[in-house]
């Protein structure tokens, strides 16, 4: 393979890795929006909490003397999903449910308030500085000529891709096949009607927050392990990016969030490689502007059919 195609391949790998993370977080935005039409701006913070819980669990497991990497990973993911889901559930219960029925702006302001609160809460508990997360999975494969450009695919990148695909598949099956998933889809189409048919819509709403938080926790743990550093402010930019991914793919659509995440990840990685790292956010948001101009419902979003 020529050097240019190797460089291209490297960017695709990096882009898909980053995109997977965005996609995992974006699901939380899109599901909540799909059901209650609200942007949960504290979702980025939920992801940040997921990363911190991951750090604490890994440290604790280290102290307990557990050294097997697969065991640590599984336990960390499980505990993280559990704890972060509780945060997601509580967030909805405390900050959004009491405001339901009010204009959307009210809940939005509450979300921004919760975002600031959670950031400070973690700062007080864990400090405002960067904390290092020990790399659990290191190493990788190299391809390419010994004296030219070599493509590097780390084990961690593979882990991120596999984990993301696994959780996305589980979520898709859950929504398409299970009874609760069916109730979720019904609620997304007509919340009042679902309620009238006896579906406990409050429970369904809680469930979307729990699922969204669980996936954000997975993203948090993966990012912590991938970059090795976390701080209480990582939620903000990741949240904005994932939100962009959700809008890009068509907010309210789960496959849209997945696609939007990947497109955004690829766009950023290509810009970093071929243009300049400083421009990656510019390109990401320009992409958003153009999609909104020419396809306001996003890539996979359905046009808002007549609401009589």
């Amino acid at each position: 393979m020529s050097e240019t195609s190797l460089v291209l391949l490297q960017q695709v790998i990096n882009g898909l890795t980053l995109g997977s993370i965005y996609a995992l977080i974006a699901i939380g935005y899109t599901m909540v929006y799909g059901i209650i039409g609200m942007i949960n701006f504290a979702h980025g913070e939920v992801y940040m909490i997921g990363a911190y819980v991951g750090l604490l669990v890994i440290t604790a497991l280290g102290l307990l003397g557990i050294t097997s990497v697969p065991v640590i990973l599984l336990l960390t993911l499980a505990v993280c999903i559990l704890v972060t889901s509780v945060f997601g559930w509580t967030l909805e219960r405390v900050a959004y449910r009491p405001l339901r029925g009010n204009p959307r702006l009210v809940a939005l302001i509450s979300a921004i308030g919760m975002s600031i609160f959670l950031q400070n809460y973690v700062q007080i508990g864990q400090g405002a500085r960067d904390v290092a997360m020990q790399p659990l999975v290191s190493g990788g494969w190299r391809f390419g000529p010994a004296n030219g450009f070599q493509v590097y695919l780390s084990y961690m990148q593979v882990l991120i891709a596999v984990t993301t695909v696994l959780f996305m598949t589980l979520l898709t099956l859950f929504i398409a096949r299970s009874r609760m998933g069916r109730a979720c889809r019904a609620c997304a189409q007509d919340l009042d009607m679902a309620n009238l048919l006896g579906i406990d819509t409050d429970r369904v709403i809680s469930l979307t927050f729990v699922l969204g938080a669980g996936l954000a926790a997975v993203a948090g743990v993966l990012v912590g392990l991938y970059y090795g550093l976390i701080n209480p402010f990582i939620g903000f930019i990741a949240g904005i990016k994932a939100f962009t991914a959700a809008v890009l793919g068509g907010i309210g659509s789960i496959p849209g969030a997945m696609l939007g995440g990947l497109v955004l990840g690829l766009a950023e990685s290509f810009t970093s490689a071929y243009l300049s790292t400083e421009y990656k956010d510019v390109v990401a948001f320009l992409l958003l502007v153009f999609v909104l101009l020419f396809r306001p419902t996003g890539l996979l979003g359905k046009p808002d059919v007549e609401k009589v």
Partner: protein
Amino acid sequence: MSALLEVADLGMRFGGLQAVDGVGFTVERAQVFAIIGPNGAGKTTVFNCISGFYRPTSGWAMLEAQPIHNLSSHRIARLGLVRTFQNVRLFKNMTVVENLLVAQHTRLVTNLWSGLIKLPRYRRSERQALEKASFWLDKVGLLPYANREAGNLAYGQQRRLEIARCMITQPSLLLLDEPAAGLNPQETRELNTLITELRAQHGVSVLLIEHDMSLVMGISEQILVMENGRPIALGTPAQIRSDPKVIKAYLGEE
């Protein structure tokens, strides 16, 4: 035995507007009861108060001697009162059969774990739900369309699917808000037959709002006439037809 639905002195005020005032009536078991009146008379507001969409500002409503006027809609639905709206509100992106499955949600085991690992109990209840769905699809003549998207059905079929979706929750009282609106004469006659059957074979009571007088007069046992938020007459179709106040409300005074 007490009446199925008892409504007394029901009132609904929106700010300065008294939309409904002093409405009271009783629906017996297996009865068809109609509310009629000119547009803006407050008929749908009464429905909204009874079905938990609004919280009435005065009066009360009881379903089988249990107060329902301050319950939320899903609790009322579980007690056996379901409704349709003036406009069709199906889950349009779901298939016809899925619309009927989702309506059985509360009556099925929804335990997350048993669903994920598909326990035998879950499978069995899912199969029963499907059987029930096909029974009702057959009843309203939609069995051949089971796997179509609900939004792609013809208007009259969507109306029938809505009624099936209500009936599958095994209600004791069905509230239909203008079920014949937009139907052609043939479809209206089919609706008439369907309502009569539901009542005769499934013992359900029907409370309906309707403008189509041939339908109302043909199937109702009791009729409540409303005007400007207040009840002006209550009686059998024959009584209503000859009531001077009703004639005045509909035709105006000379």
